[in-house]
């Protein structure tokens, strides 16, 4: 009888275990990794940083743009973060301030202060695929970091530079995206290293490389360099985060429309 019980247990284990493995479909596994990767960068509460954006054309001509910004993490998991961006260069836009309240399913709320006009304007945020300041980075690349904005699929593992990555495919589930799909490579610490973007026609448009990962507060991984290579027009944009500080205790009210004028000129 005792032996019978043993066999039974083995039987149960054997039937359950493979069943459990095969229970996770490619979509579920993709979603699980994407969620873990997203949560890797969460818990920062708030953040301040200076950012450099270097635009390089196919001839090698370079221009640098400088902005500084603050971000407030939304503790409500069903709503997006708030951010305030101050533009320093080019000099003709110095003093421009942009406030954005991102949302997961709805369009974001955005306000812009332009020194030349001296007024705060509510602007449309349905421009998902538009270029940010003439760069190869689209507005949706900033607002679309939440894993819930995509459908996911695990494609398998891929070895690149002697390192094994999870290969994931994702399709935007929000309107007006410029992309038909994205393919990402994520390492075993759930950090994204490479992201290929395919345009609406299904052609490879650009590749994003995330580099200089830094571990903050012993638990949050953030890439301090982002490089975007546009395959079609051969332009390159490099984004660098400088002086990034997390959990500095920013007042929530700094992210309200009326606070834009405190930063404005």
């Amino acid at each position, binding site marked *: 009888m005792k032996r019978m019980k043993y066999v039974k247990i083995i039987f149960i284990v054997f039937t359950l275990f493979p069943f459990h493995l095969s229970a996770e479909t490619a979509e579920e596994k993709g979603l699980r990794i994407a969620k873990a990767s997203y949560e890797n960068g969460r818990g920062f509460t708030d953040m301040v940083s200076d950012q450099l954006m270097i635009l390089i054309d196919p001839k090698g001509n370079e*221009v640098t743009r400088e902005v500084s910004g603050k971000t407030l993490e939304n503790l409500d998991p069903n709503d997006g973060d708030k951010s305030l961006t101050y533009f320093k260069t*080019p000099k*003709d836009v110095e003093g421009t301030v942009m406030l954005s309240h991102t949302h997961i399913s709805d369009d974001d709320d955005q306000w812009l202060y332009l020194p030349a006009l001296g007024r705060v304007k509510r602007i*449309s945020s349905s421009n998902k695929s538009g270029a940010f300041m003439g760069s190869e980075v689209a507005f949706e690349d900033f607002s679309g970091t939440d894993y819930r904005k995509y459908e996911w699929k695990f494609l398998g593992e891929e070895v690149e530079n002697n390192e094994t990555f999870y290969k994931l495919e994702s399709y935007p589930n929000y309107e007006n995206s410029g992309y038909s799909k994205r393919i990402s490579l994520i390492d075993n610490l759930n950090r994204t290293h490479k992201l290929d973007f395919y345009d609406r026609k299904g052609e490879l448009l650009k590749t994003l490389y995330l580099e200089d990962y830094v571990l903050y507060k012993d638990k949050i991984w953030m890439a301090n360099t982002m490089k975007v290579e546009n395959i079609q027009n051969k332009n390159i944009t490099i984004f660098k985060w400088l002086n990034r500080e997390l959990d500095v205790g920013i007042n929530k*009210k700094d992210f309200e*429309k009326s606070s834009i004028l405190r930063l404005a000129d």
Partner: protein
Amino acid sequence: MLKKYIISFLFLFLQYLVASQNASAIDYKAYGFIQPEITTFLNGDGRHDQSNSNQSIFVKGTFITYLNDVDQKITINTTGRIDEKDSERSYIDFQKLKYEQYFDDITLKIGNELIFWGVNESFNIIDIINQSNLAEDISGTKKFGQPMISLNYNHSYGNFDLFIMPFFKERIFPGRNGRPRLALEVDKSTVVYESSSKKNKIDAAVRYSTVYDDYDIGIAHFYGNNRSPELNVNPLSQKLDAYYPILSQTSLDIQSTKGAWLYKLETLTAKNGEERHFGIAGGTEYTIYGLRETTSDLGIIVEYTFDDRNDFAFNNEGVLALRWTKNDIKSTSLLAGLVADMSGSSNRFFAEFEQRIRDDLKVFIDMSINGEIDADDFTYAFEEDSQLTLKIAKYF
């Protein structure tokens, strides 16, 4: 005269504040630009014997510093112009010369300030705090700084603003050689006020504004000297006499942002002297993003304004404009459109092009072409003032 003393005092006070800081703690921003401009008038010499060309230099400088760990802020924002032909167009103004103190939910502000009310692109009918400089720009969009003490209370239900405004500034009109200019000169020596305190009247305003979902809403009331005087022909001097009534204006402005569509509305009811009037202006702006699979955007703007005063210059006007933005490294953009008097046949075409040509240089080309203008229209005096202006701004 008193105002000059106060400005000097404010300047010294701000200097004292800056100087009293620990030197290493002073963190400031200073930037600005200088902009030479050349204008050619396309109809030859003007109807009032003005020249067919003009040259001008415009400058703007900004200085900002935060003190005591960003609880206090000092802003100095100066604009000025030297104009070749029109002495009224040469000026210097502290648009902003203010000290701000931030408390938790309250902001206290003292000094010169620019306050914009409204949502429209073209007909800003409710914008009343600052005086216009018509010599700088005949459309009235260029403003002078207004001295004030202001309090802002930021409550979870919205924002409450209170403005107390001493030192009224009279409107500036183009001078004899200005182009465009009114048919007759405005006489500066015969200005009359309804208020017995004249320009020393202390004006006041309150505003409540809030954001609710897709709506940005503002309700405001202004009581004080009207910024816009009545102009009456003096048969003896053959000049225009300006009369500033007391204005008591209540206004509402709303913008609704629905995807690529913006809907805008400004409306007011006001008692101007003894008479009450009503005005409404609004419209829509729709943007096509990624025009024909490029990175450029095309915005289509339609706005209309109505005022129930028959003798008011803009009582039934419409604008149709297109805004093209290339979204390139050079920030190339073009705004072009048509302004038309819906109750007459007067119209005007305008185009504004801009492009960054170097990191610190930007070129602007403005064009304004007057169509046929009715003889009884306020803008009839400008009929032959179609112009092309080239501006190059050097930023520092």
